[in-house]
């Protein structure tokens, strides 16, 4: 087994490594060859340092713990801090930032013997659904380089889909794991809020962000989740709830499982996506599951709610990027004469701090991309004096109603099924100039973040032009085991996860 090691799922490689039939060195060298060949056209990774990776490989193989991920290369999104590795959130603002600490999830991966490939591409600060807002340029969809891989964890999903990593970690604030997993034809799971520690995840919206796996199949997803899940004393919002045996709980039977089918607006839902999801449901009934109609009130308002809460938190989380301690700082005296800068603007006039204020303003003007600025302005606006109640507070109240809707629905069903995205992967540039249209493409994924419930996207077929479609399953909080079991049963009765993108068959 030499030619196609990278194509195998982790759980198979693991057995081979344990049996001694696979050498992790060979695996990594093969992977590096793939990366060297394919990454320049794909840009799944912003940069790759093969020598550094080889050194890490030797260190890991010789001294690393022989845990559940021994010798397995896992890539992580560029918003997860890795000690000494440049971690930039694909932003000019964090250029050169090498944190002196690692995210808890990185430590957990390493404790199981994994080899970390840093710098998976993403939308800048995870602001986007296409990986086009990356300061380092967009990632291409491995199945069609004219199309986006989805976002914001587009680099992670593309890397896994094209065998440039055995598995990946992404982050999901409004669908950023599930939608790119769907667009790239792989499995992506957003865990329950609080299931995985956020320590070391560079925050976008703290009350919505979760880290989760992007993998080739559901078994790998369960494996990675079991490695990264669990309580972390460094994260006050990390739940002390017991971690289930996600891998051991996988079974092909769906006997007696109640599948909730919510009513929602299907405006903008692609006909082929609707068909694929319909077929997937038939498969679920065939496996023994039965349908239950559920109501998810205010689900249609989830985008409006989300963009208030998420941008408010983002504007706050991004306030720390001011050019003082780390990252980008605009050079003095190189102003662009912009409005609102120092004196002479219509903004409130700073009295005696002009040099400092100008430094802040230009650093942030030059360091942030367009989408980041848009969200900072929107978030600042909804929190500002006179608008808080009408926007932010209103958003938090509607969030309550959305959460209550899920609580009620899960009294009647085990798992809710929806499409992951209203369409398959769209073309590069198609929505870049229309932010609202871009936001609306998150319609099916956002509510899981608002309610804090876990959700997974699994491949459920292809459109007529061969673009993958994702089936989204949602479960009640901390019921990842149930969620994965349904996803597994569905996956095992289909062939979708075996259909590799063209690019990896070259």
């Amino acid at each position: 087994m030499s030619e196609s090691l990278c194509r195998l799922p982790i759980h198979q490689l693991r057995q081979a490594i344990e049996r001694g039939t696979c050498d992790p060195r060979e695996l990594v060298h093969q992977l590096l060859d793939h990366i060297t060949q394919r990454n320049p056209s794909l840009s799944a990774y912003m940069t790759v340092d093969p020598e550094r990776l080889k050194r890490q490989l030797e260190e890991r193989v010789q001294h690393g713990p022989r845990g559940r991920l021994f010798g397995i290369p896992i890539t992580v999104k560029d918003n997860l801090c890795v000690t000494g590795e440049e971690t930039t959130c694909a932003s000019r603002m964090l250029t050169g930032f090498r944190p002196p600490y690692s995210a808890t999830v990185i430590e957990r991966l390493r404790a199981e013997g994994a080899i970390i490939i840093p710098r998976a591409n993403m939308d800048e600060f995870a602001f986007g659904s296409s990986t086009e807002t990356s300061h380092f340029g967009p990632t291409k969809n491995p199945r069609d380089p004219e199309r986006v891989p989805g976002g914001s964890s587009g680099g992670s999903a593309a890397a896994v889909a094209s065998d440039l990593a055995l598995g990946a970690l992404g982050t999901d604030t409004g669908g950023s794991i599930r939608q790119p997993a769907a667009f790239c034809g792989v499995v992506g799971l957003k865990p329950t809020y609080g299931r995985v520690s956020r320590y070391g995840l560079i925050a976008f919206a703290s009350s919505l962000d979760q880290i989760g796996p992007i993998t080739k199949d559901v078994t790998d997803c369960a494996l990675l989740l079991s490695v990264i899940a669990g309580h972390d004393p460094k994260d006050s919002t990390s739940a002390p709830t017991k971690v289930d045996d996600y891998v051991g709980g996988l079974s092909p039977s769906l006997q007696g499982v109640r599948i909730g089918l919510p009513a929602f607006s299907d405006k903008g839902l692609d006909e082929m996506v609707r068909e694929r999801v319909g077929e997937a449901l038939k498969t679920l009934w065939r496996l023994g599951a039965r349908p239950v109609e559920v109501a998810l009130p205010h689900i249609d308002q989830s985008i409006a709610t989300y963009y208030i809460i998420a941008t408010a938190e983002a504007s706050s989380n991004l306030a720390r990027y001011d050019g003082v301690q780390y990252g980008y700082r605009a050079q003095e005296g190189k102003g662009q004469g912009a409005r609102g800068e120092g004196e002479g603007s219509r903004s409130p006039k700073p009295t005696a701090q002009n040099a400092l204020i100008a430094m802040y303003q230009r650093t942030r003007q030059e360091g942030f991309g367009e989408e980041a600025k848009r969200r900072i302005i929107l978030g600042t606006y909804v929190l500002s004096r006179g608008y808080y109640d009408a926007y932010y507070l209103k958003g938090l109240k509607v969030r309550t109603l959305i959460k209550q809707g899920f609580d009620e629905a899960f009294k009647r069903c085990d798992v809710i099924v929806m499409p992951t995205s209203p369409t398959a992967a769209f073309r590069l540039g198609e929505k870049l100039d229309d932010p609202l249209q871009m936001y609306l493409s998150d319609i099916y994924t956002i509510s899981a973040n608002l309610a804090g419930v876990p959700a997974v996207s699994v491949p459920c077929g292809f459109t007529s032009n061969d673009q993958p479609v994702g089936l989204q399953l949602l479960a009640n909080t901390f019921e990842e085991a149930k969620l994965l079991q349904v996803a597994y049963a569905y996956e095992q009765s289909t062939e979708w996860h075996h259909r590799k993108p063209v690019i990896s068959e070259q």
Partner: protein
Amino acid sequence: MAVVNQQEVEQVAFLARLALAEAEAAKLASQLDQILQYVQQLQAIPTDEVKPTSHVLALSNITRPDQRQPCVPPEDVLRLAPERHNQFFKVPKIIE
């Protein structure tokens, strides 16, 4: 009717310490207005009796014991600084 105009966008940008070029401010104002118009749909939902949710988890009183942990060597963070002066971070002069 517009919900937000360019002048308000410029004021908010100042609060957020973002300099905006004229064209940028105008474009942002129109995009922001479009988004805020969309967001207005929430006003139709009655929420007088609804409590706000800022945490979905039912966690409370998460604390740590008052124990010292090792600090980071100053050099490890000062080397990240755009500008430094000995063991300080350096910024343009602030006159109070």
